[in-house]
């Protein structure tokens, strides 16, 4: 169990070690209990980031499946694997996130899709939403973004 330890005596106060925002995030991490088991597909070409998103979801008991490219995501869905949530990065190897989203929607999948990217322009947002994601999130993805979505899915 992690404990809070004050920094050394010399630490200046302006460092603001006790931060309300971080405390709030920690509360979000621990307080939510989901009634239903959920499975999420994480589509991201960058392994470190994929594992991090899976780590973010694990404390809520959300099962995850990660794939590193859009083609595998489309194949899985075409094969009939069902997901409660799909988290998809915009820039992917081979097929980009927008094309993958369109293809997934064309198959007839209507589960919640979350488009994630570092590019924050309004055009980027509109393009991703037009491709079929329900929510567009500018990275980094964190509990503040995820918790309301998980709650909403849990109550459906």
């Amino acid at each position, binding site marked *: *169990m*992690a404990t809070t330890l004050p920094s050394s005596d010399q630490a200046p106060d302006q460092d603001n070690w006790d*931060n309300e925002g971080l405390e709030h995030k920690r509360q979000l991490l621990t307080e939510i209990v989901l009634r239903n088991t959920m499975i999420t597909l994480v589509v991201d070409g960058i392994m470190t980031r994929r594992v991090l998103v899976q*780590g973010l979801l694990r*404390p809520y008991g959300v099962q995850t499946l990660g794939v590193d490219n859009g083609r595998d995501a489309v194949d899985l869905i075409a094969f009939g694997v069902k997901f409660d949530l799909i988290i998809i990065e915009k820039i992917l190897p081979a097929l980009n996130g927008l094309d993958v989203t369109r293809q997934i929607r064309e198959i007839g999948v209507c589960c919640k899709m979350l488009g994630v990217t570092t590019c924050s322009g309004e055009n980027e947002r509109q393009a991703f939403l037009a491709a079929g994601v329900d929510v567009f999130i500018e990275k*980094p993805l964190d509990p503040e973004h995820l918790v309301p979505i998980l709650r909403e899915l849990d109550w459906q």
Partner: protein
Amino acid sequence: MEVGQMQRRLVDYTKSLFMEGFLDAQFLQLQQLQDESNPDFVVEVVSLFFDDSEKLLNDLTMALDQPNVDFKKVDAHVHQLKGSSSSIGAQRVKNACIAFRSFCEEQNIDATLRCLQQVKQEYYLVKNKLETMLRLEQQIVAAGGSIPMIELGF
């Protein structure tokens, strides 16, 4: 060294990594995901980052060593490295990648070669720092102590 002393040393060392810009708030988020049910999460993700980065740095070195450099390919590798470094909060590597990408767009071979050296330097620096930090954590746990939670205001 007694546990309390090691814990304070770890806090000070970690704090210096934030002050010197090696790490940013994203690393704190990564630490918060580690708990009793997932005690090695940080080590796992950081190891993935090392593996990923070293592969990408090799790919980049080879791609920039070609007689006709494919800048699209170079940019794709740098994009990957930027994503990987920002996901663990390796801020200086991420920033070096941002500069690198702008020179890819210009197709400036000399500048991209300089950027590659810069990114390599930043990567090996942060790798060394993270390894030292994780070693300190292991020593604390081995001595029966707990890892102190680091909190910073951003």
